[in-house]
């Protein structure tokens, strides 16, 4: 069975190489779930979209490595 995991990261090729199955690309290495260049509310909205994408990835049946 196994436990579904989303790997949220910015360097997708590394995630693929190490064998993550559900991959959600993020913003940047030092701030995967944020963007300091955005206004506070915009940044929060961006984070919300990313986390919702993570939840969708966890609910998506997959047969092979998938980048969402």
């Amino acid at each position: 069975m196994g436990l579904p995991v989303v790997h949220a990261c910015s360097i997708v090729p590394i995630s693929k190489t190490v064998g993550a199955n559900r991959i959600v690309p993020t913003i940047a290495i030092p701030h995967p779930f944020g963007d300091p260049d955005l206004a506070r509310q915009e940044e929060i909205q961006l984070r919300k979209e990313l986390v919702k994408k993570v939840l969708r990835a966890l609910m998506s049946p997959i047969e092979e490595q998938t980048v969402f």
Partner: protein
Amino acid sequence: MTVKVIHYLNQFFGEIGGEEKADLAPVLLQGARGPGKLLERLFPDLEIVATIVAGDNYLAKHTGKAVKEILSALTPYFEKEAVEMPQLFLAGPAFNAGRYGLACGAVCKAVQEHFDCSVLTSMFQDNPAVQEYRHDVLICLAGEDVTSMEESLRRMWGLAVKLLKGEEILPGDDQYIPQGRRRNFFHSRTGAQRAVSMLLKKIAGEPYKTEYEMPVFDRVAPAPAVPDMSRAKLGLVTSGGIVPRGNPDRIAAANAQRFGTYSLKGLLTLTSETHQTVHGGYDPTFAMEDPNRVLPLDMIRKLEAEGDIGCLHEAYYATVGNATSVANARNFGKTIAQELLAAGVEAVLLTST
């Protein structure tokens, strides 16, 4: 001089029975069995003095106990006078048989720790036991199944002879699984010269051989999807080094030796007062300002309150993924996965920087 050998086999190759005998406790038999007989016929200068046979399931279910039983059965052989003592312990070949391979690995590891003799097993490169035991046990390459028996035995004996003579062995030349050891030697050409000639060959489309093989990572089948996250328990893990202020577990900025488990009870967000990053491999400015940028607890809590997430596991797990060894990372992952499963977590978000 005849080389005295003790051979480990499973119930099938040991001529005791098939799957119905897989629960067989270890038995010590005099002389050679199965592949051991072929070994003696191919190489008259070896003598199999005894064969230890055990069932695959017995070894898998009671590994510790089985290994102890095997060691005590073998002890009398190693209390004999030097001329009578076995010089070599062989296990398998196990080909691509998973349980048999794991048994050969466990038995070889124990025998070489307890007795003074050369120890060698033989498996197909994709046998699951290879990843488990290759650093500890010398594993000669075998074919995928029993049709490669003779070829696998010839290779195994070739390597055994070198071991017994104390000759230098190399994974490529002697066809065994690399054990991850480094050996210093002087090369006639500098690294720069070798790298340039490799590059020229690559550009010209000619074959070249790397001096440093990239690691091959294991693969796992994707886990089934969570039917409904609004009813599921979510766990959080990060390799981005987000820890409580002061880094209570002293997780290193690079080459981490441990992970930390940190409470999320009553915590709605991460702030620069409560948490920090200790990762030494990226500019920490943005994570220090707002740790939610690496581990988005604020948004997870919000979506939990809005009903998109059933509930959040009461702790999160953190380490630093900066030049951290694959062996350490694998161990952290195993332990964390066990804790998550024990806590009834059904889905995991792992964030990396």
